[in-house]
């Protein structure tokens, strides 16, 4: 639900990082926050438990400056991944313009990835949006895992139905920043094309 304020000449877009617990959503935002120029970023706000797990959301406002006279702002959010927080994810997803689905490349996490993506589809549909048309980019994170536990990309494509849906898909190592900005660029482009 991009918001365009003609008087203030502002455009706001909301992007949500979604995915199972511990897949690396918060790490994505932390890396972005550490790398973008000072004048672009606001404070990274994290509502977390004492053990650093995301409880409500992380929030990072980015100010892209003026684009053709319009002040352009992107607000990035993460959801808490654990199954327990299903209702909280619904709340954070409210009014999102696009979603980065972060999948965990650990072989043992495939079912969690699938469940989380299914839940996302349900939640988007509940907001009266067509899931098939909704801006989504997939990130296969943790590509640095040891080969014996690393799920091959083709296997993840198969399980997550990427080929059918035509989603952009990016391999990443969020802890090292690999693929993090590529993902952000990809989702930004899809969101803009559908404004």
């Amino acid at each position, binding site marked *: 639900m991009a918001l365009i*304020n*003609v*008087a203030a000449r502002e455009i706001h877009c909301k992007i949500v990082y979604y995915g199972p617990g511990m897949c690396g959503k918060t790490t994505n935002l932390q890396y972005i926050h550490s790398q973008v120029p000072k004048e672009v970023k606001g404070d990274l706000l994290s509502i977390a438990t004492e053990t650093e797990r995301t409880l409500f959301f992380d929030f990072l406002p980015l100010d892209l400056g003026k684009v053709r006279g319009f002040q352009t702002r992107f*607000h990035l959010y993460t959801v808490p991944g654990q199954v327990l927080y299903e209702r909280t994810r619904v709340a954070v997803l409210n009014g999102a313009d696009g979603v980065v689905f972060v999948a965990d490349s650990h072989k043992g996490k495939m079912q969690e990835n699938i469940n989380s993506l299914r839940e996302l589809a349900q939640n988007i549909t509940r907001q009266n*949006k067509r899931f098939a048309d909704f801006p989504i980019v997939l990130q296969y994170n943790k590509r640095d895992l040891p080969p014996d536990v690393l799920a091959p990309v083709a296997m993840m494509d198969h399980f997550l139905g990427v080929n059918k849906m035509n989603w952009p898909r990016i391999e990443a190592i969020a802890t090292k920043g690999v693929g993090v900005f590529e993902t952000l*660029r990809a989702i930004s*482009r899809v969101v803009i094309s559908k*404004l």
Partner: protein
Amino acid sequence: MDPQLTSIIVPSEEIAKIEECLARLVEDTGSDYALLLDKSGQVISSKGDGDRQDITALGALIAGVFASSREVAKLLRERDFRASFQQGVRENIFIALIEEQWILCIIFNKGTHIGLVKVLTKKATDELAAVLERVRQQHKARDEVLGSAFRTSMEDTIDLLFRD
């Protein structure tokens, strides 16, 4: 639904009406601050004394809390959850929903009675609902703002700022 139709474009004259409405609400209730948010947490307009540096974070949090309270209400089978009240030692916050799309938020201190806030907020939400209705009707402004030149510039900006 066509995602193209989900952007909300608020033209200048409607922003002026919103600002007027918020200013009157602050004035008549003696509140400290009034804030109109989109349900996504983005600040549409705000009125009150002093420049708040934290307004972006405030918007994100209030929208999150409100959406979260609504989920709680649903679990309790509450049918019509449209307002919430946070009582603080210094500041109170009253939040009201406008047509499932916008959130009106009033921050006030001990000097203001909650009853007055509720009554005048009801009036303000009716006015703002009318603004929202008009904003939803007009699609022309979208093409003026979001032409292909704009999209291309936006993509260039993204490539420039979001790079490794």
